[in-house]
């Protein structure tokens, strides 16, 4: 899949970014806001895909990295009064540090034990948020006030609560992470990760230090998820414990499975598709978890490669 000229892959990704940019001017207000949210969550899914798709490590606890970014950025503003850029970096740093610690511990296990360990650490993180309700706001959550969400560059200021600014900020973050992911996947490092997924013992025998490669992947994945969480707090102004619950560990898994694991654009397609399905069905039923459940089962039964994974297998072998 890497033989084809890189130009075609880059052209496709830049095309997608251009399309998202163009959509900003034509979409009606409701979908405009929804797509901004989807782009931020697609970053979360891309971070998840980094570990699940390319290294083959199924984590059931990525909500803690999203939550670390969300609370790192949100609480830095609410409790410490930091500015927007610093708060964003603070949130990302929280996620990176947490990912390093969790990676060091959880990577000692493999397979099913890895899933359960990550789920338990995420549960501890979630319970800690509830326990320290005095600072975090507990299960009520907290609103990041509007005046604190304005970026000042000398004379000009950027108001993150303005829909257009919000959309463009989400697009910038999304494009950045998408291109970084593409670069990682095409790099030597990305191929080592895939080799670990396919056969860890053999990769080890070829002289690669699989543990530190996997640890690096956990940290990168956690950092991307934290960036998504921090952006969510700053753009949408709400910090709540539900974003750290088990459900938010399952959702990125669902998005990635749906779009296609180990494809760079799969996370975006999965997220868009899932939101579209929920949007359509919410006209008939409020039971959206039912849809999530049925989608998960149908996917693992009939579509284990996801939308883009199947397309790649059938027609477009060059898709990264």
């Amino acid at each position, binding site marked *: 899949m890497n033989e084809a000229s890189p130009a075609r892959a880059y052209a496709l990704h830049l095309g997608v970014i251009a399309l998202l940019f163009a959509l900003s001017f034509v979409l009606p207000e409701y979908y405009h806001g929804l797509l901004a949210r989807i782009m931020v969550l697609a970053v979360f899914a891309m971070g998840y895909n980094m570990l699940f798709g390319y290294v083959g490590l199924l984590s059931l606890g990525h909500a803690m990295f999203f939550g670390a970014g969300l609370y790192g950025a949100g609480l830095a503003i609410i409790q410490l009064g930091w500015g927007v850029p610093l708060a964003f970096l603070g949130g990302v740093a929280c996620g990176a540090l947490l990912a390093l610690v969790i990676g060091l*511990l959880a990577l000692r296990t493999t397979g*099913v034990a890895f899933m359960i360990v990550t789920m338990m650490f995420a549960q501890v993180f979630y319970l800690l948020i509830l*326990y320290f309700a005095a600072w975090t706001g507990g299960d009520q959550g907290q609103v990041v006030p509007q005046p604190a969400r304005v970026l000042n560059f000398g004379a000009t200021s950027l108001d993150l609560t303005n829909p257009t600014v919000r959309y463009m900020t989400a697009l910038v973050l999304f494009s950045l992470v998408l291109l970084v992911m593409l670069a990682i996947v095409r790099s030597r490092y990305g191929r080592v990760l895939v080799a670990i997924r396919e056969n860890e013992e053999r990769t080890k025998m070829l002289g690669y230090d699989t543990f530190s490669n996997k640890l690096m992947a956990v940290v990168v994945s956690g950092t991307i998820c934290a960036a998504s969480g921090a952006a969510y707090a700053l753009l949408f102004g709400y910090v709540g414990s539900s974003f750290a619950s088990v459900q938010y560990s399952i959702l990125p898994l669902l998005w990635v499975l749906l779009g296609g694991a180990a494809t760079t654009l799969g996370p975006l397609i999965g997220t868009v598709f899932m939101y579209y399905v929920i949007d359509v069905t919410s006209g008939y039923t409020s*039971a959206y978890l*039912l849809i999530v459940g*049925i989608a*998960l089962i149908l996917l693992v039964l009939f579509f284990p490669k996801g939308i883009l994974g199947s397309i790649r297998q059938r027609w477009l072998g060059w898709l990264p």
Partner: protein
Amino acid sequence: MHFGPHLLLAALEGLVTSAVLALTALGLSLVFGVMRVVNVAHGEFFMLGAVLAWAISTAISGHPALGFLAALVIAPLIVGAIALVAERLVLRRLNYNPEATIVATIGMLYIIQQLALTFYGPEARPVEPPFSYRILLPWFGYSGYKLSIIAASALLLIVTWLVLTRTRIGLIMRATQYDSETAQAFGIPVDRVYGGVFALGAMLAAIAAVLIVPISQAHYLMGQDPLLLSFIVVIIGGLGSLRGTVVAAVLIGLSDGIISMFFSPTLAKIIATLLVAMVLVFRPQGLFGTASR
């Protein structure tokens, strides 16, 4: 109340938790041990048992014991049948691949939970206990029904142990657990054993739920805590070990009861979860289990 009686009360409450937990965790442990499937929907089978117990006991008029006994027999059978259907339709087609089955059982969790919310509603509803005899201790009165839960659970655990170690069915199950391919080669219908074990696991959870529902109420979200606690118990006890599961259930139930009485329940959960994650990281075979093959 003085510290001593207070501690006794906490310990009794903890033992009731342990009794229910041991049954639920045993179901999870059997399914994992024999099928190598981590059943994330296990807590929902527990919840279904409780909700069905409410439905059955309200449908039957007369003495509360009548409705309760009917629930104790019928609810686990229905839950077992549902589990069997889920196993045949989904898990078998996935060839019991560990990662795919985890995703599929997460899907089942959401489906069952949402259906319970739709058809049963968001209310918590009580079931009347079959009898309301209070045992008077020198310091406080204690519900006789709660003590009978402990007895019933102990009885069921002994029966399960006897079935596993002394009967042909138990032998077949253990052979499948030990080496499913060789078992298949010796003419054991491994496929049917898997179906039966999955249903049995769900039924154990349902029985535990029927036992607990007269003192805790049926609610559509009640499956979450038992799931997490069962995971904890199964991991500490060593996956697939009955003795370890029971010891760990008593340990976790007692410490949960005592810690929650004297400290915050959230703190108790944080400490327990963190400890278990550490056990899994540094001693993956569990505290009582032997090293995995």
